[in-house]
């Protein structure tokens, strides 16, 4: 049992890494998107500048207490979820909170942030925010189903709900991506929605909804949301790597794998137009659900 100080240190380092990596990935995605669109694009550190600017911007007004609490809820949930996920396997990273990284706890703690943000943007009174939130929550119901099917398939196959156990399984038996390919496909398709990149970005569509839930939040509110978003992105990527790509034993490997995963929704998004909400839901309940069932059958039969 390590000391409390070690835990706190580990937590802070994790958060900083998550923040940095997340923002960098976002910047890279902007760069890559620009290159695909035959543009030069902003530098990869552009998001850091944006974050710095937002943090230095003045926020003089609020619409009520929940507007402050909403981003804070989001941040809490982001931090807790990144702390629960084992960043590297074999205990190479700080132990943080990963009590064997329980997946169910993880799913729910991730949702907590969405609810907090929904409340925060609801308090602002902007109708666009509420519309965005309802779209976001609806879409979430859409992609959670194949995602959970993929998770259940894996859990069934290895009879554990612990991420750490799954990592150990992959140490010896190869990556889950190959041993349960359908689960991987379902999970990846669900991930498209989770990152809210292009086909599924109706939630915060800038021209339709005036950026949706965040439309009343600028400055520090937006900074908090942006940074928790980057932490979330990192958390999700690490989760995918841990689940399907066998985890990583050092930071470089982690970065390589996470970036590879990250490319999927990003590249898919660049070339896709936008879905309406019900189309998005129907999308997720089509092929991804089918693959989820296949994954379940695969897990049960083999």
């Amino acid at each position, binding site marked *: 049992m390590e000391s409390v100080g070690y835990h706190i240190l580990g937590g802070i380092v994790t958060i900083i890494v998550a923040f940095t990596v997340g923002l960098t990935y976002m910047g890279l995605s902007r760069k890559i998107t620009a290159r695909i669109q035959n543009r030069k694009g902003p530098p990869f550190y552009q998001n850091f500048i944006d974050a710095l600017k937002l943090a230095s911007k003045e926020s003089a007004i609020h619409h009520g207490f929940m507007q402050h609490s909403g981003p804070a809820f989001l941040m809490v949930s982001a931090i807790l979820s990144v702390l629960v996920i084992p960043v590297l396997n074999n205990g190479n990273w700080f132990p943080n909170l990963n009590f064997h990284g329980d997946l169910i706890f993880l799913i729910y703690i991730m949702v907590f942030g969405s609810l907090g943000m929904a409340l925060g943007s609801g308090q602002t009174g902007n*109708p666009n925010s509420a519309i965005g939130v309802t779209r976001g929550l609806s879409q979430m*119901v859409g992609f959670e189903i194949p995602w959970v099917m993929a998770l259940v398939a894996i*859990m069934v196959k290895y009879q554990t709900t612990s991420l750490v156990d799954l990592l150990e399984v992959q140490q010896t038996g190869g990556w889950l991506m190959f041993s349960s390919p359908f689960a991987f496909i379902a999970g990846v398709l669900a991930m498209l929605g989770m990152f809210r990149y292009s086909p599924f970005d109706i939630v915060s569509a800038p021209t339709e909804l005036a950026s949706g839930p965040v439309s009343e939040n600028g400055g520090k509110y937006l900074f908090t949301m942006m940074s928790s978003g980057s932490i979330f992105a990192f958390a999700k990527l690490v989760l995918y790597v841990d689940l399907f790509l066998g985890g990583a034993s050092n930071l470089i490997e982690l970065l390589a794998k996470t970036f590879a995963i990250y490319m999927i929704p990003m590249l898919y998004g660049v070339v896709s137009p936008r879905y309406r909400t019900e189309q998005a839901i129907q999308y997720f309940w089509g092929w991804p659900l089918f693959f989820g069932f296949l994954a379940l059958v695969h897990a049960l039969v083999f």
Partner: protein
Amino acid sequence: METILTIFIIFIAGTAATYFLGKLNGVLRSILFLATLAATGWLFFTGITPESGIEFRILGITMGWGITPFSYIFAIIVMGLALLSGIYAVKAMEDEKNLNFFFANFLLTVMSMMGILFSLDLISFFIFWEIMTWSSYFMVVFTGKDVQKVGIKYILFSAIGAYAMLMAIVFIYSFTGSVLIGDFIDNFHLFDTQMQWLIPILLLTGFGVKSALMPLHVWAPGAYSNSPMSYTAMFSGALSKMGIYGMVIVLILIVQQIPNGYWIKEVIAWMGGITAAMATLWAIKQDDAKKMLAYSSIGQLGYIIVGVAIGTPLAMLAGLFMAVMHGIFKSTLFMVVGAVERQTGTSNFTEVTGLIRKMPWTFLAALMSIIALAGIPPLGGFIGKWMLYESLMGSNHYLLIIMIFFSSTAAFLYCFKFLFGFFLGQEEKEWSHVKEAPAMMVIPMLILAGFAFLLGIFPGLILKPINEGMQFLGYVSTTNRFWEMSIIFNDWGNAVVMMPIFYWIIGVFVFFLVFLTIKGYKTTRYVSTKDISTSGEIPKEHENLTFTMGFMQPFLRAVAPVMKRQIDKYYTSIGNGLEALFDFTRRINTGNGQTYALYFVVFIIILLLFKDSLF
């Protein structure tokens, strides 16, 4: 043990006194009402211990009253909720008419529920069950709205359920010659196979009606939303648990004795799962908070049914824990709706908005309960769901997990709708006069919300009695595996101490919520919700900017095929068909003397024709 009798005597005397003396004076009525609840509550919590009972005989049938460790769990819910919603009701109902009837009936319901839990025999169980049915029926129609529709639906389904139960009881009595539940359970394996299947199914029908299982649930939305909210808090919180109580006994003690009886459990679990999913979808569609919470109750009861029907130790623990939690948070939410309705005059999301600054304490209670309802850590609802998932995983119900997960994810939609609809959004001028609800209404809500929080952090408080109750049902003690903790989340089998989580959650929460939020709140200035970026347009005072109409429309469009068929409609058509048929039988008596004379002759002929078979 005479404490039991004392409790019932106090209840009956209190009911009568509240009814008759309550006509004299309103204050006296409230005092009598609360004193009855308080006295019985005090006697219950101090004087009653599990495994105590009395026996007596009626009609030559031996009956017994007593309390088992298992019914003790439910008795805690009933008494606690009765006390708190009683306090709430006194204030919430003060402007209504016919209050002596209301309060007397309230006491009668509480008494009948306690009676159900105290009954050790089937006859007094059934008597109290029926008292509960009709006393709650009078509450459903108390407001005088939709009486013939909602009320008759409720009483019809309750009667069907109750008589199915009565049929089973009658069979049991004629087979065993005793109505004691203990004798029945002991002798059940002696029944023939046909009866072994029939009796549990009949009993489950009876309990399924009260716990709003899917094909039998159609009474619930109307009944929950139609009765006064102070009563619905108990109706949904405690009364529906009576169905769960009976269901657990049937499923665990009786169905297990049937060879191949696990099929019943599977079917019930699946019905619970479907109930949860469908009710959630319907809850999303509702624009009335009461209706929404009613459907939500049905959905939550679906989870509980899944838990108890699976019946592994962990699933049972989860089901019972969720039953307690549901009692707590759902009655809080109904109380919240009642408070909002009392202060604004409507419970419709499309009308009321932006009450957060007007009714902050009510909002706090609503927020806590919603978080508990949605199953988000660290409140108690999560622990129940977690246990449920783990147990489903452990007992290989994979599709059920997805079912449950779908409904619990979709539940976020209506959770948000509830909070947003009432408390967030534009602060319209129409509601600018609204004040916080009176303290007598807010305090019970906050106490209940506090319990939801407390049980989230210290679930052991309630898991301990549940564990004892489960041992009574024949489970091995789960002490060493499940509830040994005094602090947040337990390890379900994983031997990890959870101290760091506690530090982190507290630390992060304190940092962000207290430090940043409050600091930010103080350094910034409040502007009204009319000051929003509406492309530069300045919203006029009378312009309603809140987005409440067709709130979850995209989602509902996506799930429209599932919601096209309503069980309600089938029942309605069956009912209409029957009424038409009965109209035909009514016409047999034509009111014409000649026809009657003809009948006379025909009857003679028929009797003569069939004399060999009939005599």
